[in-house]
Each structure stands twice: as C-alpha cells, then as structure tokens.
C-alpha cells in the first residue's frame, strides 16, 4: 500500500500539522516505505494467535472510587494563555 500526497494532506489536516507541498512529497515516500516494511509481517500466519496486549501476564489495576485529586484550579490554569473567572479562554469555536 502506498500513501499518495492527498492522503498525506488529509492526515496532516486531521492532526493539525502544517505540511508544505515539498514536505508532502517527501512524507508520501517515507510513509509508503514504512507501510511496506510493516506489510512484510503479513507473511506470518497468525491464525488462532491472541493479540499480545502486554509482555507480562497481568490484570489491569483498578482503583477505589474515592476523590483523591482535583481542587487545584490555579495549577490547572497555570499554562493557559488567557483566563477569566476560572475559565480557560480560547478563540470562539462555534459558528
């Protein structure tokens, strides 16, 4: 499978990354060769093999339902470029 320039453009837009026309050309070649390498794995027969989700056999840890965090609005807002009355303030995002 190869990735053409249009597909590179679409992925870049979804990821909100600005990519120039020249870069698209380069990336289309690079992404295609990465996929080609991955496709070699298709040669291995994986019938009946469960997906490997962890290299150690363990259960997901589950925590108790207790309030142990939060109540730090000043810290949460520290990096906000703009704030008002405890809210993050961003450019209007509704039409």
């Amino acid at each position, binding site marked *: 499978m190869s990735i053409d320039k249009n597909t590179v453009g679409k992925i870049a837009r979804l990821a909100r990354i600005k990519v120039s026309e020249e870069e698209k050309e380069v990336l289309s070649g690079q992404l295609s060769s990465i996929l080609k390498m991955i496709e070699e794995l298709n040669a291995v027969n994986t019938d009946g093999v469960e997906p490997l989700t962890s290299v150690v056999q363990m259960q997901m840890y589950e925590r108790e339902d207790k309030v142990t965090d939060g*109540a730090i609005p000043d810290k949460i807002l520290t990096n906000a470029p703009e704030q008002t009355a405890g809210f993050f303030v961003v450019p209007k*995002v509704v039409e």
Partner: protein
Amino acid sequence: MSNALLKGNTGDWEMVIGLEVHAQVLTKSKLFSGASADFGGAPNAQVSPVDAGMPGMLPVINKECVSKAVRTGLGLNATINNVSIFERKNYFYPDLPQGYQISQYQHPIVGNGEIEIDLPDGTVKKIGIERLHLEQDAGKSLHDQHPQKSYVDLNRSGNPLMEIVSKPDMRTAEEAGAYVTKLRAIVRYLGTCDGNMDEGSMRCDVNVSVRKPGDPLGTRCEIKNVNSVRFVQQAIEYEARRQIELIEGGGKITQETRLFDTKNGTTRSMRSKEDAHDYRYFPDPDLLPLTVDNAFIENIRKTMPELPDAKKKRFVETFGLSAYDAGVLVSEKERAEYFEIAAKGHDPKLAANWVITELLGALNKAEKELKDSPVSAEALGELVGLISNNTISGRIAKEVFAEMFGTGKNPGDIVKDRGLQQVTDTGAIEKLVAEVVRDNADKVAEYKGGKDKLFGFFVGQVLKKSGGKANPGMVNDLLKKKLEE
C-alpha cells in the same frame, strides 16, 4: 403502533429511529482520575492533571464504573463481555485537552440486549440494545459569554459515561420517547445513573432516517445532544419531515451531524464537523484490556433490584391494580416505594388511587417533588385505613388530606381534633333523616308521586346536616326505609 406512517406527496413514509444515550455513571470520582465527578463545582476546580491532558499522566480505571456498567448491562438483559478494550477516539476541540477521548470501540464491555417499552395505547414493544460501552466525557465550552471568545471548564472532562446504543428498532417519536423514559427508569432503579437530564447526566444523540415501507434503510442523520424526552420527540418529528420534503423535492440526504434548536424546534447542519468522523481509533497503549470474570458478574447479578417491568407485573398480580395504575406507580422508583409503604396493611387499590390522584395531583400543583412531600407514605396509608374502616368518608378524607398536605399533621390527629369521625350511629342518622323528611314535605310528596330523582337530593340534605360526617351507605338505607313508610 398502527398509525406510524407519515403522509408525503408521494405516499406513506416510515421513520427509522435509533438512539445513543450517554448516561453518567453515578460515582464520586472520574473514570480514569481521582478528581470529583460532582455536578456544578467552581470552574476547573474538579480537574486533575490527567483530566487536563498533562503530558506523562496515566489513566487508572475506577472500579465502581466497571461494576456499574456490568450492573446496567444486566438490567438491559444484555450479554457481558469478559474482555473489553479501551481505544482512543481522536479529534481536536478546546474542551478535549488530551486530543482524544478514551472510549470503547470494537470490544465494548456490554453486548446485545433488549428492553421493553410501554406505549400509550397500553401495548408493549421490545427494543434491541446494540451495546453499552464506557467512555470519558469531554469538558464544557461556553460560547455565549464573550463575542469573540469561548470559555472552557474542564470539570466534566473525564467524567464516566455509559454510552447505550439501541438498535434502529423505533418507528415513531412516541416510541423513542418511551424508550428514553424506560431507560431512565432502569438506570435509576439500578442506582447506576441519576438520570438527571437537566444537569446533563443523561443526554441523547438521535439517529433518524426515512424510507418507503418495505424499502432498505435510508441515509440517516444524527442529531446531537438532545436533552429532554420532549425535545427528542420534537427533533424526530422535525427531522423526518425535513428528510421527506427533501427527497420528494428531488434532493438527496447526506449523512451528517445536526444540532437541535430548542427555541424553534428545528434541526440544522453542523458543517464544521465534516472531517470529524475520521476518528482514527486505536487501542489505548496506557490501558490493559478490561477483564471481568464470571464470578464478578454473578455477584452483581445477586444484588440486582426488582426492575420496573417486574414490579409492574407484581403490582398487577398481587395488588389487583390496573396495568395503567401500576405503570404510573413504577415509572419512578421513589413513587413505587412510597406506594408500597402506603399500601402496607391497607387496601392497595384505594392506596394506589390516593397516591396517583390526590398525592401526585397535589404535588404537581404545588410544584414539589415526591421526596419533598409534606405527607409521608405512612401517613397516607393511615388515611387510607381510616377510609377503609369507615372512620371517615372519602369526601371528608379529601379535607383531611388537604390539611395533612398543608400542615404535615397526621390524619388520626386531624380527625380527632376536628371531630370528623363518620357518624355510624343508626339512631343519630335516623334523627337527621326524619328532620329532612319533615322539612321537605312537598318534595317527599313529589318523590312518592314518582319523581325518583329526588332521592339524591334527600341524601345530599342529610349529609349536609351531618357536616359530611354521616356514613353515606347508612344514609341511603335509612332514607329508603323512611321514605317507604
């Protein structure tokens, strides 16, 4: 429903409706962080670094969310999957600081199920459940505070949601309304969601398409975030009409996300989300698969409460209530509990009548919730008892009830203090009867001349003389005897 089809210029159309309901799991803390999940805190005061999408933070799942999702699954008569997987649903929005929502996609915790909905004509219809999965809520954006800016509060970010997806089994707006109502009753009975639609603990996305009866499914539109049963029905009615007019006018439906405008009852396109459906799901590398073993599921099954349908059946079978009355009583868990206390040791049918007609009527008028009722279930039961054992008549009982509702006093005291006990002393009633007959000699003559209708007048006069306290049955009998003399 027999009359489910919509008339168009080219013939009849059928609506096909499926619902995605987001129900917030009733917990103290969030799905993957220890911040409070309560509604209505000061902005950004219930946010942990995990919920704010800070780099390096790891999600840790809340046990309670897992058991409540399983509990809800059992309440929907659904299969529980022993293994489910959390995936990342990727999109950009200011109230989604992580840049993705942790959700379940290909392997949800709950699979196929089914619930029954009660329709206004008394029939019951089965609606399939496609799945239930756990996911994080996003934060909240306020767009109306500033002309050029949006304000973002992340308190809701990371709150635990169950997304409950129905099969496209509904054919009318009414059925969709009944489905949401039943789902809400079930999660409230189970204690897994408070069902509070005003506060957004339950929100619906509505999928609507139309087709000619017998045709394959049409293209659907999704109406996002509809937050009341009434709005769900309005949005469906409007959207189906819009689609029919568009198709009959030679147009084509494009699959899209639409918004419901509560002010004018219409839906409109959300064009900005064109790209948004490419969510690029992939398994969240921060989280192992979620496993629930059969012993865990069976332990939850053992604690399942009696659900609305089973309760309704019991009310009909053991108390002899009508299906309608039983339905009204079980529609809210608190209401059913209230009734059972009021009916304990008393005539259940009479108790049901008093709860439904008098109590709910009075609460409605006073704009009060049942939990704030000035009349306790025990007190209402006592009042029902006083009627059954002929201490007071039904008419006096209404007076007593009004005083109970106003003052919170118990009925026995009110009856005693105001001397409202029913007169069942034959001699006393005979005396009143005699007086009435004596004072209305002309009418008695008319009655004896064949004007039977006057009997009611005599009964009324005797009751009036007794201040409403004479036992009406005895008045009837004694009057009849007297007038036949």
